[in-house]
């Protein structure tokens, strides 16, 4: 629904701009970082602490206790509009599969977090900019339905440019489908927690991203409804400092907390224990 802008983008080169596969340029400070080191540091810049984007599998490793069981791993789009372009949609998908090592822009499954069983969905920006088409919508819905059946908390880590243009209205309707699932789930008294990472905009932001009981923004994430480019074109005036940053959202009352990547699991587990434990007064 919206481009996939980052308020950070202007501050430095984008990761994709670095042709060297062994090195990556920090979008925060421009430092050239050795990829292998970076991976070991949760992809935090050693110089400025900037949070570089993290893939879905790395994030699952970061959050789950090591017992992640994937659900519906083989779901793929059937290209409803048979979208052709300079590069046809099917071909773009194929390319992103290679690039990301994933079949689609989200991985969903069951796991525990510090011992608390949950349903976990993690989006990956490197697959079509984390856009939501039929597969993402279906997998989110299945995850939430499974959590409802098992009475488990649901946690979704978002990273998305919004709805996927190449699936047209089928993509937009995934907002409706996932929202209906969240509505039923919430009515059971079960908790939904979202972790909004860089970037989260458009249709994902305007559906389950902001439908959670607890919304955690990862430090440095760009979060919003409209993309920066669209806003620029519309209002043609200077945007405020830090506009659409995690901190900006916190100050404007939109998220519960801003958490650094290294503390995400602790922050998440803390709330999961709080709502799951059946403690009674002593």
């Amino acid at each position, binding site marked *: 629904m919206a481009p996939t802008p980052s308020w950070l983008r202007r501050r430095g080169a984008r990761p994709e701009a670095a042709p060297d596969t062994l090195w990556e340029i920090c979008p925060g400070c421009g430092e050239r970082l050795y990829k292998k080191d970076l991976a070991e540091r949760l992809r935090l810049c050693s110089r400025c602490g900037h949070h570089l984007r993290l893939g879905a599998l790395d994030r699952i490793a970061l959050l789950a206790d090591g017992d992640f069981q994937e659900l519906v791993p083989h779901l793929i789009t059937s290209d409803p509009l048979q979208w052709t372009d300079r590069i046809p949609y099917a071909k773009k998908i194929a390319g992103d599969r290679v690039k990301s090592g994933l079949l689609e822009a989200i991985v969903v499954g069951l796991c525990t977090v510090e011992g608390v069983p949950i349903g976990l969905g993690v989006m990956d920006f490197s697959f079509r900019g984390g856009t939501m088409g039929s597969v993402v919508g*279906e997998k989110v819905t299945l995850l939430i339905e499974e959590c409802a059946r098992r009475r488990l908390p649901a946690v979704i880590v978002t990273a998305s440019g919004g709805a996927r243009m190449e699936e047209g209205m089928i993509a937009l309707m995934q907002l409706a489908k996932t929202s*209906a699932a969240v509505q039923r789930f919430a009515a059971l008294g079960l908790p939904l927690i979202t972790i909004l990472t860089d970037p989260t905009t458009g249709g994902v932001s305007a559906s389950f991203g902001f439908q959670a009981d607890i919304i955690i923004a990862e430090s440095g994430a760009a979060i919003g409804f409209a993309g920066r480019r669209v806003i620029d074109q*519309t209002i043609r005036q200077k945007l405020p400092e830090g506009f659409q940053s995690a901190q900006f959202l916190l100050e404007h009352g939109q998220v519960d907390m801003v958490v650094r990547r290294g503390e995400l699991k602790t922050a998440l587990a803390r709330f999961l224990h709080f709502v799951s434990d059946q403690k009674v007064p002593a």
Partner: protein
Amino acid sequence: MNVIVELEKPLVELEAKIDGLKKLNETQRVDFSAEIAALEAKARQLKNEVFGNLTPWQRVHMARHPRRPLALDYISALDGFTELHGDRTFRDDPAIVTGYAYLDGMPIFVIGEQKGRDTKDNLYRNFGMPHPEGYRKAQRIMQHAEKFKRPLVSFIDTPGAYPGIGAEERGQSQAIAQSLILLAGLRTPIVVNITGEGGSGGALAIGIGDHIVMLQHAVYSVASPEAAASILWRDAGRAEEAAKRLHLTSDELFEFGIIDEVVSEPLGGAQADATRVIADLLAADKRALARLTRLSADELVDRRYEKFRRIGSHVERVHDSAAR
């Protein structure tokens, strides 16, 4: 400039001519009947040429035609419409109109996205692009509809939710997301009408319902063609191409099962006979409500769930290593 307005210029001139002749015919002694008949034939032909086979891009402009009926034109055609204002939090947003009225005797709550008729009106209505407070006003009305057991009828006509600083600050995402939750679970019948432009999440925020009616020349898309082109190709100038690829016309969306009913428009679009189109649309709403109000709230919500649950286009991929 609106493509349709350009296209229909010769037709408009021709019709003006015919009108002139008709007036002369009444007041003068000379008989122009033959000339009038000839011009009318030509007009019919021209009309067919212009409107007979509109491209998706032309239909986008039809949906944006400056004389096309707007949400308040439909709403005012209901009986006893009373507007209710405000989100009780920040501001009354004129881009969304809410209130209550009677549809042929049936009390209903209504929500409409309202564009302006002229420049001044458009500035007031923000070109039909709601702010978060507009959606929050709509949420109040949704809750009223549930509380007072009255159906909800909405009228969609927006390029999209407003992309601006204040809108982001006040949580455009959150406002739309909460509207979607509310509509999904609302325990009263909901009929949705797409009468003009249905742009993206800003449209869907009042667009989840039990029966979705779309005017023939309305459009409904995941993003406006301009925004889609900008997202896909970083070139809003390729909007026409995007319009074609997005499958945003009523017939395509009916095929896809996204909408439930198409209400046809006269050749020349809704504005050519607004009274008829408004009556036809409201008649469709009435038929739908007559059916929906027979269902229990549980049935309604379950069916609505299934209706949207089904929408998708995906398959289980046969695993590469399935042969192992």
